[in-house]
C-alpha cells in the first residue's frame, strides 16, 4: 500500500511540473489572433507559423546562434583555466590557498546586478562591447569558480598514489595530466562542461547589458519583445520552446552524474 502512495505523489509532482511547459507548447502552436480570441485547452488548428517566423527571420534565429557562440566560448575558456587550478587545489598546499578559494567562492555568490554597470563601462572602454567574447568573459565571473569547485570535488576522489606512480615512472606533469589524469575524471569534466553551458545559457542580466545588436542573445531578444507593445504570445512561446531544446539534448549525457555536479563534487 505504502509504495503505491509514494508513486502517486511522485506522478502528481511530475504532472504539475509538466503543465506550465505543456501550456507554452500549446500557445506556441497557435496563432496570436487565435490565442487572444478564444481560450482552448489544446490547439484546435495546429499552426507552425510562429516557428516558421523564427527560423526565417534572421533577427530571431541569429539570437540562438549568438547564444550558442558565447556559451561555447565560455565553456572552453572556463574548462581550460579551471582544470589545472582545480588540480592545484585538490593536490597541493600553497601560500594563500584557502583565501584564494574563498575569494573565488565570493564571485559565484556576488549579485550579478552589482557588476552590470561596471561591466558595461569596462567592456565599452576596451572596445569589446557587443561582441561574443565580452559575454563569454563576463560569464567566466561565475562559471570559472564553479568549474574549479566541481572539478576539485571530482579530483579529490582520485587517489594520489596514481599521481605518485606516474611521476616515478617518469611522466612529465603536462603529459601525465592530459593523458592519464583527465581521462580518469572525464565524468567530472563532462558534468562541469554541462554546468558551464547551463549557467551561461540561462543567464540574462550580463548578456542583455553587454550586447546591442551584433551579439544579442535570444534571451535579450525575447525580453525586448515583451516590453514592446502588441505582444505576440504565440511567437514568444515558440521562442521559449526552442530555448529548452539544447538543454534537453545535453542533459541526457550527464543524467547520472548531474547531482554530483550540483553538490560541487561532494556526494
Amino acid at each position, binding site marked *: 500500500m505504502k509504495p503505491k502512495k509514494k*508513486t502517486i505523489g*511522485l506522478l502528481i509532482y*511530475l504532472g504539475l*511540473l509538466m503543465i*506550465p511547459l505543456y501550456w*507554452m507548447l500549446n*500557445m506556441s502552436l497557435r496563432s496570436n489572433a487565435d*490565442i487572444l480570441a478564444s*481560450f482552448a485547452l489544446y490547439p484546435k488548428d495546429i499552426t507552425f507559423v510562429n516557428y516558421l517566423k523564427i527560423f526565417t527571420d534572421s533577427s530571431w534565429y541569429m539570437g540562438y546562434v549568438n547564444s550558442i557562440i558565447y556559451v561555447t566560448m565560455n565553456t572552453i*575558456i572556463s574548462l*581550460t583555466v579551471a582544470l589545472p*587550478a582545480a*588540480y592545484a*587545489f585538490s*593536490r*597541493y*598546499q*600553497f*601560500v594563500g590557498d584557502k583565501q*584564494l*578559494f574563498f575569494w*573565488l*567562492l*565570493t564571485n559565484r*555568490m556576488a*549579485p*550579478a*546586478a552589482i557588476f*552590470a*554597470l*561596471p561591466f558595461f563601462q*569596462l567592456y565599452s572602454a576596451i572596445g569589446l562591447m557587443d561582441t561574443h567574447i565580452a559575454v563569454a*568573459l*563576463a560569464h567566466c*565571473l561565475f562559471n*570559472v569558480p564553479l568549474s574549479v569547485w566541481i572539478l576539485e570535488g571530482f579530483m*579529490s576522489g582520485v587517489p594520489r598514489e596514481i599521481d605518485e606512480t606516474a611521476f616515478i615512472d617518469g611522466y612529465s606533469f603536462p603529459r601525465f595530466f592530459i593523458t592519464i589524469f583527465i581521462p580518469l575524471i572525464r565524468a567530472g569534466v563532462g558534468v562541469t562542461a554541462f554546468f558551464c553551458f*547551463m549557467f551561461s545559457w*540561462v*543567464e*540574462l*542580466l550580463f548578456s542583455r*547589458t553587454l550586447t546591442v545588436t551584433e551579439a544579442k542573445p*535570444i534571451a535579450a531578444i*525575447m525580453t525586448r519583445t*515583451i516590453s514592446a507593445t502588441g505582444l505576440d*504570445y504565440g511567437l514568444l512561446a515558440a521562442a*521559449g520552446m526552442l*530555448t*529548452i531544446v539544447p*538543454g*534537453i539534448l545535453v*542533459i541526457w549525457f550527464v*543524467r*547520472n552524474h*548531474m547531482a*554530483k555536479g*550540483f553538490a560541487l563534487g*561532494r*556526494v
Partner: protein
Amino acid sequence: MEKWANNKAWFLVLPVVIIVAFSAIIPLMTVINYSVQDIWGPGQSVFVGTEWFEEMLGDKRLHDALWRQFLFSGLVLLIEMPLGVLIALAMPKRGWGVSACLVTIAIPLLIPWNVIGTIWIIFTRPDIGLFGAGINNLLGIAFDHTARPLDAWITLMLMEIWHWTPLVILLAYAGLRAIPEAFYQAAKIDGASAWAKFQYIQLPKMRGVLTIALLLRFMDSFLIYAEPFVLTGGGPGNSTTFLSIYLVKIALGQFDLGPGAAFSLIYFVIVLLFSFMFYQALQRVGKGEKG
C-alpha cells in the same frame, strides 16, 4: 590525507586568478570609486565621502526591498527543502524510471531565466493562462498577478518552487543513493518504522548535500533578478521589488551612479557574510565526507 606543500602550485591557479580578477576586481574598483563621488558627466565629479552610503542606508525603499528579500528567501527555503526531500524519497531506486525521473525533473533548471518568467506569464494571465483563467472562471476567485500584490507573490512563489525545487530533489536523491544497502537491511532486521529509518539513517546521511542545497537555494533566491523582472517587473507598485531589481533600477535605469554603487557595496557585504558561512559549512561537509 595531507596535501603536498608546494608553492609552485600557484602557477597552476594563475590563469584562473587572472581571468576572474579581470571580471571581478576592475569592476569592483569602479564601483568603489563611484560610491564616494558625485558624477554629473564625463570628467565632472566631486568627492562626497560617505554621503551615498548614508543616503542608501536610510533609504526606506531599500529597507523594504531588504525585508521583502528575506521574506521571499525564507518562504522559498521553508517550502522547497521539505518538498524536495519528500519527492527524492518517493523516487524509484533502480530501473528505467530513474533516468526518466532525473531528466524530467531537471528540465526547469535548464530553461533560461527570462523564459521561466515568460512561461509563467503565459500560464497565469487571467485571460489566456490555464492557471489564471482556471482560478478566475472555475473557482470564481479574482486572480490577477499584474494588479494585486498578494496574487503577484503567489505567482512568484509558485514559479520559484517550480523552477528550483528540482535542485533540492537532485541533491537529496544523490545523498540517498550514497547510503549503503546494509544500513537498510539492518533497519529491516530491527523492524524500524519508515519514520525511524528517515530520522536515524536517511536524514543524517543527507546532511552534507542538504547543507549545500540549503545554502545554494538561499544565495540564489537572495540574488533573484530575471524571473520577477520578466513576470512582474517589480510590481504591482513595489510589492515584488527585490534587492537586485531595485539596484538595477537605480544604477542602469536612473543612472544614479553614486547611490547605485553604494547600494552595490552594501548588498555585496551582506552577501559576503553569507558566503563566509557557506564556505565554513562547505569545508565541514568536505571533511565529514572524506574523513
